[in-house]
């Protein structure tokens, strides 16, 4: 069996029901092992023998965390026995260095595997490019490694586990099965979210029995995820592929390129958040709360807020394991101290923050892919966020003088539209075929902007007909309404569950029939692979 996506017949109709059935019929003590076995089998289905990399990661963090635990106990014992302050200081320093060395080994193993498998071809290609540019006859062979699907997700989980044990946020787990389950729980393997040990490990290993409510609520979330992916994302893929692949051949104007950027952003959101709905719904069925990865990102009023609502677990990972360690490092603290004296309180912390932002966005870009376009994508957001921070005091002053109230709806709408447009341009860079292509598309967008092709019927000649466009409008409107309900702090599923059966059931069955009838699958539609699984 080969599983290529969570939103597939193989997963939704075979693998998940079989896992639920097995989980139900075995005794409580055996349930975590059913989940673990299912997870390893799932990994085999998606990446076959590359499972060995996952096993190395699990074993490494399990052993290194135990090593950290041992060092911490040794330190406590030695400190208790120490007589003088100097002696205690020496013990802390020596033990601290050993602990740090263990953490570094853990990071090197896990990020090292990721770097070699994912980034070495990019690095070697660029080395060869450098040789060519310098007219050197030297050349290195570009390796071609196979990387397991989901390595970018579980490697970050591995680092977070080691780091959290080091920082004593969690205890080292003596149970390797629980660590393995935390790393490999099958719903999160392909596209995350990036879970922390404290979020999921206990619930995964508890072997709680299945509950009717969890099963039904989980299934509803699964259906909604499939709706987003099959009805919206897969349908948009037709027009988006044409615009991005053939924009030169069709001689599109800037208006259609901008439309392509907007539609790709919607496709990406529907595909990724739809998959995450299936992931969270699957977890919910087993009684495991998987952290949310999206919180209505298109209601954001700034780029910073957008990244707090989009791929949340990646953002918080970068915040906790890159941004904070960089800003809290000794050189940065010193820089902030000096900058405060010269630049004042408002601008003083900015140099250190901007350096930390640079590290975060370089890593963010590279995490998405080994290519200059991804680095460009990261730098684009770095510049936007840094500029946002730099001009905030100035914009506050200007808005004050113009008597524009930040809390009034016209200004909020302006901010939301501005942020969405900036995000779409970023995603256009992200989806281009390389840095040259993204610059070419940006040039056309700004120098040949026109609404002509949006209204002269060309839009209907590139893959979608009027019927498809109507379905897209209806489906996106449904997702938008659900978003508004959630934004108001209410749960759409609970609201529906509170309705009588003759209202509830037509909604549930209607959703499934909608996906079956209006889904973009079968003859004439190109099936798309999960976009984020390739990261």
């Amino acid at each position, binding site marked *: *069996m*080969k*599983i*290529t996506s969570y939103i*597939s*017949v*193989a997963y939704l*109709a*075979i693998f998940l029901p079989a896992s639920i059935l097995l989980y139900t019929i075995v005794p409580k003590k055996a349930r975590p092992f059913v989940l673990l076995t299912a997870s390893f089998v799932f990994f085999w289905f998606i990446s076959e023998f590359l499972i060995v990399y996952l096993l190395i990661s699990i074993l490494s963090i399990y052993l290194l965390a135990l090593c950290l635990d041992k060092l911490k106990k040794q330190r406590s014992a030695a400190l208790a026995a120490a007589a003088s302050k100097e002696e205690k200081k020496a013990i802390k320093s020596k033990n601290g260095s050993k602990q740090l060395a263990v953490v570094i080994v853990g990071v090197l193993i896990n990020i090292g595997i990721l770097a070699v498998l994912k980034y070495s071809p990019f690095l070697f290609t660029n080395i060869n490019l450098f040789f060519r540019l310098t007219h050197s006859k030297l050349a290195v062979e570009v390796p071609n490694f196979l990387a397991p699907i989901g390595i970018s997700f579980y490697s970050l989980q591995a680092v977070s586990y080691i780091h959290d044990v080091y920082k004593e946020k969690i205890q080292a787990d003596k149970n390797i099965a629980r660590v393995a389950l935390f790393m490999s729980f099958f719903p999160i393997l392909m596209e995350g979210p990036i879970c922390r040990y404290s979020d999921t490990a206990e619930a995964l290993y508890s072997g709680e029995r299945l509950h*009717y409510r969890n099963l039904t609520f989980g299934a509803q979330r699964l259906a909604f995820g499939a709706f987003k992916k099959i009805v919206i994302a897969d349908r948009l893929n037709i027009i988006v592929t044409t615009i991005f*692949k*053939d924009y*030169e*051949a*069709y001689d599109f104007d800037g208006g259609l390129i901008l439309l392509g950027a907007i539609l790709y952003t919607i496709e990406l959101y529907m595909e990724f958040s739809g998959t995450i709905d299936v992931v969270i719904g699957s977890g919910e069925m087993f009684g495991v709360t998987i952290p949310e990865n999206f919180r209505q990102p298109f209601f954001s009023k700034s780029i910073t807020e957008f990244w707090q609502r989009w791929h949340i677990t990646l953002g918080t990972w970068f915040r906790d394991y890159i941004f904070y360690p960089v800003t809290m490092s000794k050189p940065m603290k010193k820089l902030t101290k000096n900058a405060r004296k010269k630049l004042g309180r408002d601008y003083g912390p900015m140099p250190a923050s901007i350096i930390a932002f640079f590290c975060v966005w370089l890593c963010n870009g590279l995490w998405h892919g080994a290519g200059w376009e991804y680095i460009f994508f990261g730098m684009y957001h770095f510049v936007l966020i840094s500029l946002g921070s730099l001009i905030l005091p100035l914009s506050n002053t200007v808005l004050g003088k113009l008597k524009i109230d930040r809390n009034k709806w016209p200004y909020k709408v302006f901010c939301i539209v501005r942020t969405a447009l900036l995000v779409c341009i970023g995603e256009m860079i992200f989806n281009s075929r390389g840095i040259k292509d993204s610059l070419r598309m940006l040039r056309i967008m700004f120098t040949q902007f026109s609404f002509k092709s949006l209204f002269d019927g060309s839009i209907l000649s590139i893959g979608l*007909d009027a*019927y498809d466009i109507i379905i897209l409008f209806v489906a996106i409107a449904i997702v938008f309404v659900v978003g508004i309900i959630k934004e108001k702090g209410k749960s759409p599923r609970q609201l529906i569950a509170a309705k009588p059966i003759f209202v509830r*059931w037509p909604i*549930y*069955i209607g959703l*499934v*029939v909608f996906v*079956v*009838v*209006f*889904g973009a*699958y*079968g*003859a*004439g*539609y*190109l*099936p798309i692979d999960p976009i984020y699984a390739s990261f």
Partner: protein
Amino acid sequence: MKEKISRSTIKKIIASVLFVVFGIGLLGIASFCFTPERFHTDSVKDVKPYGVLAEPENTLDAVIFGDSEAFSAFSPVQMWQEHGFTSYVCSSASQYISLTESFVRQTLEHQKPKVIFLETNAIYRKMNTDNPTLAEAEKIFPVFQYHNLWKNLDPAGINENEDDYCWQDDLKGFKYIDIINPSRNPDYMKKTKAVKKVPGSNLTHVTNIYNLCKESGVELVLVSAPSTINWNYAKHNMMVKLSKQLGVKYIDLNVEKLGLNWNHDTCDRGDHVNYFGATKVSKFFGDYAAKTFSLPDRRKDSAYSDWNALKEKYDDVTARSKTK
């Protein structure tokens, strides 16, 4: 208390069963509505391959199956005009070989062509568990296969005779594309002894197609359409091997002299040929098919006058190419 819990459990089980029954019932109703027999309309854009099912019984001399490589490269109307045999391209974008098998089976229920051409690119398309599973589901609930016909749910367009497929394609499955987007690797057929294996269970489906043709007394021929992106010599070698194993003919248009100019005759950098390339491919292929399989010239046969009438429509559609 215990009794209460068990009652509530029974209630939940009954509710779940009823829910599933309602769901299945609705899928059944949708399947009853969404079958291609029920529509006679000319706007079924995404379901060109189904048009083969609407061709009058036993009127096709050749049928070409495959994915987008097939509908881009072969023009049945041009081949009719030049040689007078009838053909249809039953292909859809990214078609899986399992779906091709299903189309071959359905076609052979209505047609007895002299030859069936299987374009080989679909043979290399990797399938996952979904394809055969969905194919099985389609047999029970045809809505999974024909759901896209919702675009034509016009009560006035519903066919009264449920057994007849009505919608016919004027281009007979060919897709007209006049975009020019040059190839970046025109020298793609570099000789090698390497053999590119066919993935997974795809060979089983090819064998099934071969058996279906054999049972119907139809000759099966493998054909590779020109593509600088999808085709190479290692795949060519595999198809030579496969054709010998099956005992069928194989023609690779990537190694034939068609006069293709990859700077002009492709719409997407060599992935597919455009109308200009298709004209050259169809000229060569029409010659080959007519001569090799002695396909009849029916241009003067009044029973096929509909085919002669297609010329005007074909010229209308392809008129735009004259400005390029």
